């Protein structure tokens, strides 16, 4: 047990080295322990699926919608509560949600570097802003 000091000193250095990126990011303000401040739609109480399911599987849902609309021309989505929605990122999702204050904030918080939806798909609110700005 004479090596106790060395063992614990080594362990401390190891843990510090392992966690230093997190401390560094916290100190620089790049990361925060606070959850993201997501802006929920004001005009709607319900999403196309319960919040827990959307949080966990919205990416699979969106890919399914994409395949249905583009490849099978099936645009009708019947939700869990019987409501019918259009399978559309621009019309249905962004009809309620704000991309910057909802999608982007959570993706930034959870370190999701993608998705590349926005290389082609438009954020109608941003498009409306840019056209009013560029108008003389």
């Amino acid at each position, binding site marked *: 047990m004479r090596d106790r000091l060395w063992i614990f000193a080594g362990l401390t250095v190891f843990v510090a080295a392992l966690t230093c990126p997190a401390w560094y990011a916290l100190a620089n303000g790049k990361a925060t322990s606070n959850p993201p401040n997501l802006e929920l739609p004001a005009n709607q109480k319900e999403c196309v699926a319960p919040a827990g399911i959307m949080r966990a599987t919205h990416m699979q849902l969106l890919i399914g919608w994409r395949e249905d609309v583009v490849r099978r021309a099936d645009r009708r989505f019947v939700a869990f509560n019987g409501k019918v929605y259009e399978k559309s990122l621009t019309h249905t999702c962004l009809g309620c949600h704000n991309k910057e204050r909802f999608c982007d904030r959570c993706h930034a918080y959870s370190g999701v570097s993608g998705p590349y939806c926005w290389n082609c798909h438009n954020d*109608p609110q941003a*498009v409306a802003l840019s056209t009013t700005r560029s108008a003389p």
Partner: protein
Amino acid sequence: MKITRKDFLRLSGLSLLAAGCKQTVRPVTQSASAARAASSEPVRWGMVIDLGKCREKDGCNACIHACNAAHNIPQIANRAHEVKWIWTEPYAAVFPSVQPGFAPQRYAETLVPLLCNHCADPPCTRVCPTQAAWKRDDGIVMMDWHRCIGCRYCIAACPYGSRSFNWEDPRPSIATINSDFPTRTKGVVEKCNFCEERLARGLKPACVDACPQRVFTFGNLADLNSAPRQLLRERFAVQRKPELGTGPSVFYLV
């Protein structure tokens, strides 16, 4: 486990019986599915373009502008990078094999509106390695830009030059973005989709609605009484390069 002679014969007999049953059951199920397919009306979207009515010479490009605005088509000055869904070319270039040689010069210079022919047997879909281009049941040659890898085999295969490649990011070259329709990204091929997104809402293609002369007649070629079928019955129409056997769904009344 050892199989006896008796068991072997019994198993063989049962297998033969099962195979025989399958043969008799299959025609029954097939006729049922065929009947189901026939009960839904067959659709093949097509278009008839009346060149006599088109006043391209007066500088009307309403169809082209409507399409550009609806589908976020970039206006790129460099012709090598140009993207086009509907465009015009002189008659002589569009119908090279229908040139009598003695026609008045103005005829050869008349501008003809061109778009994807949505062929009955499209060569572009055959060569696509990712099935990003395929033919829908309603005759539309559709593109899935999510799947396009930009190999441009389809551009080489299309005999009509209907396909364009995005050599650069198209967004800076789009004057006003229509947020209802996606833009494309650098590295994908695009072409006319017969306004598939408008057909889904029960509308006609943007070019058809925009034309002040009603040059375009759009409808279901599979329906004997549709407007394009009536025109094709009454008047002489030509297709582009019919000798290639692609079966274009776009017809021109000359």
